[in-house]
C-alpha cells in the first residue's frame, strides 16, 4: 500500500533528545502507520529506549515534537493527557510489575481503573491476558516469585490489558526462551492484524524483527539518529550502510574491512 494513503498514528518531527549537555538523538523524524508493527533497532546505547520514552511522554523533547493521533504528547495536559495515555500501552524493559500485587491484580489494575466492567468480568479478562502469554496457573503469584522471563510476559499482559490502540514494547523478547519468544511474536502479529493495534517494538532480536516488523528504523550512536528506514528484509539485502549490514548479519564492527574485502574482490 502506498504509505501516503495510510493513517499516521505516531509522528515524530525533528525530535532532539538531550540530557543536560549530552545529546542522544538529533533531529529524528519518522511516521508510524496504523496497524503496522514498527521496529526501532540499534545497538546498545543508540538511544532506542530514550526515543520510546519521548514518544510516550515520559521525557520532554529538547526540540521537535511527538504527535500521537495528531495530538502533541508533550503539550497535552490533564484530561487530554489521560485520554491520550488510555490509547497507549507500554511494556518496560525490566517489566516494572507492581511488587506488592499478584499477577492477576497487576493485569486487572488498568481494567478496574478505566472500565466499568463488573469484577467477575475484570477477573476473566485479566485471566485471558495471562493465558495469552502462557502464565495460566500463576494468577496468585507475586512477581518476585517468578523468573525474569515470566515477569516480562506478565508485563506484556498488563500492557495489553486495555487493548490499547498503540502498544509500545521495550525489548520484549530479551530474557525469553526461543520457543516463548516465537509464540510471543505470533501473539503480536495476531493483535496487529486482527485488532488493528499498532505495535512499536524496540528490539535487537533479529529473528523476531524479521518475523514481526513491517517496517523498521535503525538508530546509530555516532549518527545520533536514524541511519536506515524500511522493510527489514530489504535492508538486509540492499542496504549500502556498513553499520546496517553488520547489524543484520550479526557481525562485529571492527571486522568491517576484513569481511568486506573478499566480498568486493
Amino acid at each position, binding site marked *: 500500500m502506498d504509505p501516503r494513503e495510510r493513517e499516521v498514528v505516531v509522528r515524530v518531527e525533528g525530535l532532539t533528545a538531550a540530557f543536560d549537555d549530552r545529546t542522544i538523538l538529533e533531529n529524528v523524524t519518522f511516521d508510524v502507520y496504523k496497524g503496522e508493527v514498527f521496529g526501532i533497532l540499534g545497538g546498545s546505547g543508540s538511544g532506542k529506549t530514550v526515543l520510546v520514552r519521548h514518544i510516550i511522554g515520559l521525557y520532554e523533547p529538547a526540540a521537535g515534537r511527538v504527535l500521537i493521533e495528531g495530538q502533541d504528547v508533550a503539550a497535552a495536559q490533564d484530561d487530554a493527557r489521560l485520554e491520550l495515555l488510555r490509547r497507549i500501552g507500554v511494556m518496560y524493559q525490566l517489566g516494572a510489575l507492581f511488587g506488592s500485587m499478584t499477577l492477576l491484580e497487576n493485569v486487572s489494575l488498568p*481494567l478496574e481503573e478505566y472500565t*466499568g466492567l*463488573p469484577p467477575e468480568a475484570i477477573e*476473566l479478562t485479566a485471566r*485471558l491476558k495471562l*493465558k495469552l502469554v502462557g502464565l495460566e496457573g500463576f*494468577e496468585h503469584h507475586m512477581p518476585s516469585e517468578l523468573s525474569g522471563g515470566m515477569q516480562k510476559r506478565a508485563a506484556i499482559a498488563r500492557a495489553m490489558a486495555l487493548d490499547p490502540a498503540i502498544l509500545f514494547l521495550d525489548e520484549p523478547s530479551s530474557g525469553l526462551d526461543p520457543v516463548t519468544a516465537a509464540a510471543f511474536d505470533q501473539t503480536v502479529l495476531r493483535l496487529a*492484524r486482527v*485488532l488493528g493495534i499498532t505495535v512499536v517494538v524496540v528490539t535487537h532480536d533479529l529473528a523476531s524483527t524479521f518475523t514481526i516488523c513491517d517496517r523498521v528504523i535503525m538508530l546509530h550512536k555516532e549518527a545520533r539518529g536514524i541511519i536506515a528506514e524500511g522493510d527489514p528484509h530489504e535492508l538486509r539485502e540492499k542496504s549500502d550502510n556498513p553499520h546496517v549490514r553488520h547489524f543484520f548479519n550479526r557481525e562485529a564492527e571492527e571486522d568491517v574491512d576484513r569481511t568486506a574485502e573478499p566480498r568486493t574482490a
Partner: protein
Amino acid sequence: MAELTITEPDAATRGLELAGRLDAYSLGPVWTEAQRALARNPDRAIVVDCSRVEYCDGAGIAMLVDLLRTERAPEAAVRIQGLREGFQRLLDQYDPAEFRARPPSRATRMSPIERLGRFGRAVGLGTYELIAFVGESVTALAHALKRPHAVRWGDVLFIAQEVGVHALPIVALIGLLMGVILAFQSAVAMRQFGAEIFVADLVGLAMARELGPLMTAILLAGRSGAAFAAEIGTMKVNDEVNALATMGLDPVRFLVVPRMLAAVAMTPLLSAFAVLIGLIGAAIVMQLFEVPFYTYYLEVVNRVQMKDLLGGLFKSVVFGVLVAGIGCLRGLQTRTGASAVGLSATSAVVSGIVLIVAVDGIFAVVFYYLDI
C-alpha cells in the same frame, strides 16, 4: 457502543444479538445483561449472534468465553455464530472449560498452633540473625582496626558528611528548642522561690548527661538509620549485595564497616554540638529572667563536670553503633520488591529508637551505681 437484543426464535431457543463495538469501556452493562439472560433460561439453547459486531477487543472475547464457560445441560448449550473470522481466531485461542474453575488459590489456612510456631520461629530466626550480624560486624570492625588501610576511607568520609555535616541544621534546631523550652518551663516555676539561677544547673546537667545524646541518637535513627536501611535494602533488591558477595567482597566489611565508623565518629560530635546549642538556647531565656550571661556561664561551668559530658558522649558513641548497626542489618535483611525496602526503613527506625531507649535505661542504672 455495545448493544444486546434478546430474541425468541422458538420455544426452545433464546437468541442474544450482539452489535456494535465490544470493547472494555462500553461492555459492562451488556456483559451483566447477557449473563442474566443465561441464568433466566437454564433449559433453553442459547444462540449468540455476533454478525453485527464491528469490533471485539480482549474484554469482548472474555465476555464470549464467559458465556461459553457456563456449565449447562447439552440441549441448552451456548453457541456463538456469525463472529468475524479474525475475532473467531482470537476466541479460538481459549478453551472456555479451562476457565470454569477459579485460579488455584495459594492462601493456606493456618491453625493457631501453627501460627504460634511460625511466630516463634520468626522470633528465633530474628535473634539468630541479630547475633550473627553482631558477630560479623565485630569481626569486620576488628579487622578494620588491625588493617586500617583495608577500610574504604573515601566511603567513610562521604557517609560521615551525610550523617554528620548534613544533620547539623536539624540538630541545631531541635537542640535550641530543647534548651529554650527546658529553661523556660523550669524558670517559671523556680522564680516563685527566687531560684532562677538553678535553671543553669538543670539545663546543663540534663543536656549534657541525657537529652543531648538521646535526642541526637533519635534524630540519627530517623535520618541515617532509615537511609542506611533503604540504601542497602535497594542494593539487596537489585542483586548488588549478591554481586559483592560473588566478587569475594564481604558485604559486611564493604557496606557496614564504613557506615559504622562514620556514625561512631559523627554521633558524639553532633551530640556535643546539640549540648552547646541547647545551653545557648537556655542562655537566651535566662536573659528574659534577668540573669546576667556571665552569672549563667559561671553556674554552668561550676556545676557541669567533665565526667557528665564524657559520660554523655560515651553514650553517644554506643547509640551511634546501635543506630548504624540496626540500619545496616535491616537493609541486609530486606526481601524483594519496593515495599520490602519501605518495611526495612520503617523497621530500622522503630528498632533503632527502641534500642536507644532501652540502652539509655541500662546506662542510667549503671551510671548511678558507678556514681558517674
